[in-house]
């Protein structure tokens, strides 16, 4: 049994102005095949990636926000969103996509993936990760 490492993907950019958000999402989905302990952090402008109601038809770009809802299928279900970053942007949990996962060990009960946490708690999660990948 190879050792499982704690991976943390840190997302700090808004979704469409730069390629970081989409690249991070693709890396997470590809990396999910390696069955490591994966967490995602959304802070600063990264919280904009998870907002509901994105519609890119008029700008001619791919709307990749529905793909975040597939993360649960890929066993990526620890998604941390920083409270201070939401507050600074006039956002709350209600503005974010409802991301869920199904717990195989609990009769496939649907559970929330998103946890809104403070900057202090976020710092702890960063501190406790073996590998931090920043986008």
């Amino acid at each position, binding site marked *: 049994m190879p050792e499982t490492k704690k991976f943390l993907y840190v997302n700090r950019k808004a979704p*469409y102005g730069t390629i970081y958000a989409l690249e991070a999402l693709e890396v997470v989905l590809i990396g999910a095949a390696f069955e490591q302990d994966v967490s995602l952090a959304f802070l600063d402008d990264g919280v*904009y990636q998870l907002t509901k109601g994105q519609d890119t038809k*008029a*700008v001619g770009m791919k709307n990749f926000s529905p793909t975040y809802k597939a993360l649960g299928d890929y066993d990526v279900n620890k998604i941390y969103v920083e409270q201070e970053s939401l507050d600074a942007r006039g956002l709350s949990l209600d503005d974010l996509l409802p991301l869920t996962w199904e717990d195989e060990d609990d009769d496939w009960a649907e559970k929330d993936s998103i946890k809104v946490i403070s900057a202090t708690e976020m710092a702890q999660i960063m501190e406790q990760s073996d590998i931090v990948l920043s986008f």
Partner: protein
Amino acid sequence: MSQLHTVNKSPLDRHALASAIRHAVKGSAILMIEDGVYGAMQGTQKSDMVSHAMDDISFYVMGPDLEARGINEARIIDGIKVVDYSGFVALVAEHDTTQSWL
């Protein structure tokens, strides 16, 4: 002489909007595009900065960029006008010069 300033960066990530506001003279216009449209939202740390500048500067925001980012027009700061691509062209034509705050 009147100038159109375009801002395409999020005001919570960069200082482009703050600089544009500081350098836009009375009677000029600021158009928020791409990630700049986050500057048009109510209730952010930067909303007051925009509201206070509205006496002297006209503010516009790109509708398609708002839609892409899931920002409902109901959450836009009062007084900012939403434009589409032809509105963008009209603004450029109406002003003598355009400056991009990147």
